């Protein structure tokens, strides 16, 4: 697919999302916002999993760090949304730095287990420090003050902030993937030993990838808190860390658009299934099973393979 075609598609997507904001009903708007938030989380997460090859079970905690960072800032300091988002993202980045510093000392399954352990530690802190975090009740009463003078109190207004953050995230992740840093990350995934022998301090790059992905998780969490006007501690539980993994896998680990497609599929599927049955987890599990057994590259991966076969022996490798 030529670069122009890709830009055209993304341009059309942005226009479609803009149009949605103007004409769609409340429910579709809400759903679209949830898709965008999940996509922000998954895009950042896939930088770590698909690109660098590190599986983390702690990103729920980083999402929660963003949520509580913004929440506490909003309740105690200022309800300015931009400052709140900044607070959330910075807090999530800080927590990522601390957790990541320890976790990148190990790899593979030990890394995964370490992120699970630290994530659960963070969860237990949120759960237990009731006076600060509200414990299992979470934080409530978060308000949306006007953004640079523009009101965002209503959902259809808030939509544009989410859209803006979404577009920004897509653009930033795209740039990172296509940069020298992004290439080195791919190298680390392919062969971390050789990357060391290329003169790269692998641990530092892994940490950087972890913090970046954590920052995006924090952004998603902060925006979610503004959307729902509350922050809940369960987001930090390790079982919620499986969501971005699921989404990335469904869409395709190695492609850029994978997390985007995966987010849409995940949210849409969940909505549909929940219409018919209470037991959406069951169906979800079955779908996940089918994907893992059948479609290893996810939806986009499978498509990519088809397209690649049609292409002449041109651009190969990481996309």
């Amino acid at each position, binding site marked *: 697919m030529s670069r122009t075609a890709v830009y055209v598609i993304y341009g059309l997507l942005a226009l479609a999302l803009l149009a949605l904001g103007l004409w769609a009903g409340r429910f579709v708007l809400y759903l679209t916002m949830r898709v965008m938030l999940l996509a922000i989380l998954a895009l950042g997460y896939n930088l770590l999993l698909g690109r660098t090859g590190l599986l983390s079970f702690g990103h729920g905690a980083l999402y929660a760090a963003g949520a509580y960072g913004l929440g506490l800032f909003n309740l105690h300091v200022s309800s300015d949304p931009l400052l709140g988002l900044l607070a959330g993202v910075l807090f999530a980045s800080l927590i990522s730095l601390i957790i990541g510093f320890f976790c990148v000392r190990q790899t593979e399954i030990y890394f995964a287990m370490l992120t699970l352990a630290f994530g659960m530690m963070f969860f237990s802190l949120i759960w237990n420090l009731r006076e600060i975090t509200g414990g299992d009740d979470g934080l409530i009463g978060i308000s949306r003050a006007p953004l640079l003078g523009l009101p965002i109190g209503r959902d259809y207004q808030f939509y544009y902030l989410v859209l803006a953050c979404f577009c920004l995230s897509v653009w930033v992740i795209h740039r990172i993937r296509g940069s*020298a840093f992004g*290439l080195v990350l791919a190298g680390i995934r392919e*062969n971390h030993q050789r990357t060391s*022998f290329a*003169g790269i301090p*692998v641990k530092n790059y892994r940490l950087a990838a972890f913090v970046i992905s954590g920052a995006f998780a924090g952004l998603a969490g902060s925006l979610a808190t503004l959307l729902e006007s509350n922050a809940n501690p369960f987001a930090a539980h390790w079982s919620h860390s499986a969501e971005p993994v699921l989404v990335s896998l469904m869409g395709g680990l190695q492609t850029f658009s994978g997390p985007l497609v995966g987010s849409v599929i995940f949210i849409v599927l969940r909505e549909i299934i929940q219409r018919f049955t209470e037991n959406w987890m069951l169906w979800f599990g079955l779908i996940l099973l089918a994907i893992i057994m059948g479609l290893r590259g996810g939806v986009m991966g499978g498509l990519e393979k088809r397209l690649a076969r049609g292409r002449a022996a041109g651009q190969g490798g990481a996309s």
Partner: protein
Amino acid sequence: MNEPLLRVEGLYKAFGKVVTANGLSFQLNAGEFTAIIGPNGAGKSTLINVLSGSLAADSGRIFFEGQDITGLPIHKRVQRGLCRSFQVVNVFPHLTVFENVEIPTLAVARRAHHFFRPVGRESQVADLVRAALERVGLGARAQTPASALSHGDQRLLEVGIALAARPKLLFLDEPTAGMNPVERVSILENIRRLAVKGETSFVIVEHDMDVVFSLADRVMVLHRGDLICDGHPDHVKGDAQVRECYLGEEVL
């Protein structure tokens, strides 16, 4: 050139009861083409692993250009100019040949941390990569994924990646292993040409005696962790101890 490029003092490494480096001490000077030979189990690979940083020595010191590098991690040694290639092809399989060489080139050019600029815009680096590919003869294959290369080309890539880090001292661990004679000649020609250029001093670990004696200025013979002979190829050929340890292994 007063300071030797590499100085090793009392390097000792044992795996349980097996001593692979028994207090080795030697120097390597810039501009020399050294070959390290020895029967299987002599400790050649261990020596390279220890010198390049994959393994820690039990005791002893390593000095590179006068600086003590004994405790340095791998990437720091590479940044100072000490690098290696691998006996078993160790590339980035799903990346293209171009990208394979691009990674060390970016690192050396100190551009690897750029996280916002499209890597395609790093035109200086791209030129360096193209030049590096030409040097090992892989220019035509730049866009091929590494795993799709023939075995011989993969070995060339292997050396190419190591060279892209612009090392001052490069250890080649059996670069011709598993190659057919045609490929072997080609890669050795490449190495000879690069050695003549002078930027990089080569140390080659080899089993093939023809290779050793045609390329090397100096031959070091290892046997069970000891350096039993060290000098000009002709001198080594005539050494009684060397003949004895090679009896039944190779025909000198």
